[in-house]
């Protein structure tokens, strides 16, 4: 297919629309018309928690690990190479994502507010970003 750039973008948008809608609508349309066997029900009822565990790990724990690896390499090489531009405020490994996560979790636990928890996480993350020299 030889499309102009503009047409290519419209084709992309149309394709994403149709396929994304199909993925989300067809299972809903089909499965809401049949009664689902109990083992499948049990399986599906663990799905939200399984998805959230995966998302917490990939959005928070993996970035934190990557930061940890970067710091590990930095602490082993940089001070000797370029003198003392070490992060002086927090000489220990500080993980913005971990502290942001803890702030969000505690805030939700005590307030049951998703907005409050989201803001708490963002504020802690932003403060650490201000205080700690980013690598």
């Amino acid at each position, binding site marked *: *297919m030889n499309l102009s750039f503009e047409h290519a973008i419209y084709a*992309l948008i149309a394709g994403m629309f149709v396929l994304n809608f199909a993925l989300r609508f067809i299972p*809903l349309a089909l*499965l809401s018309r049949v009664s689902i066997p109990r083992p499948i029900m049990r399986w599906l009822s663990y799905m939200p928690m399984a998805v959230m565990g995966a998302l917490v790990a990939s959005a928070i724990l993996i970035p934190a690990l990557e930061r940890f690896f970067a710091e590990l390499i930095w602490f082993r090489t940089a001070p000797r190479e370029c003198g003392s531009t070490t992060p002086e405020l927090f000489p220990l490994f500080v993980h913005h994502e971990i502290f942001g996560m803890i702030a969000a979790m505690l805030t939700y636990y005590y307030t049951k507010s998703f907005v409050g928890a989201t803001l708490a996480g963002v504020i802690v993350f932003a403060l650490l970003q201000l205080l700690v020299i980013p690598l």
Partner: protein
Amino acid sequence: MVFSRNIELKQFRAGLRSGFPIFLGYLPVGIAYGILTVNFGFTPIQAILASALALSGVGQFVALSTLALSESVMASILASTIVNLRYILFSASLSPHLQGLKMRILAGIGFTTTDESFAINSTEIRELRASPHSMFGVGAIGWLGWVLGTGIGTIGAQFLGDLSAWGIYFAIPAMYAALFVALANNRKQVYCGLGAAAITLGLYGLTLLGLQLETYWFTIITALIAATLAVLIFPDKGDNSDGVQVNTDKDIKAAEAAEGVHS
């Protein structure tokens, strides 16, 4: 019309309120998407259209980077679809709670289902606060944040500068953390969530060791393994003790009948 009765509009508004954190989380990411697409050569209309019709955060970013690398529309659509295969699990998981509804409301809920709306709706289902129209409301407010963010990004591409300094890209991860706590309302669910996190970290470890696996596969592979393990490991006691809501669609139907949702 989507709303045939007042009660449905009321539930929809309740959903808009429950989904407001999604709006907050999507706004900055939408702005980032707007900036990126305009720099890529999209017109603002095209960028907004993409967000309004596809409504798939990671999927849209992946489509864009695939288009940049391969210059193939087909490959880009395929890549975004693969990233979004997890939506099948989401809507399958919501379907027991949406039995026998009209197609238009199912279409509304389906169209607006994302990781975040799925998570909030699942939490509300568990707390018996969800209704079909509130679930649509949760999705709709997220859609608004995503489209509005994209619009702001396309217009403000030159002025906005680096937004990451404000930590706002942590809004969605922070929401995930809160949702994790919200869903972890009994021991089996906690183990399932922790197990899922461990599986994802394991997959990440394997990629460090050289496994060729894009990170967007992590969620779907993890969810399939963790939910299957949970069903196999935790015995079925035939009641709701493990957080499995076998009666929920009956409960919801009873609640709906009481409120007059079903015509």
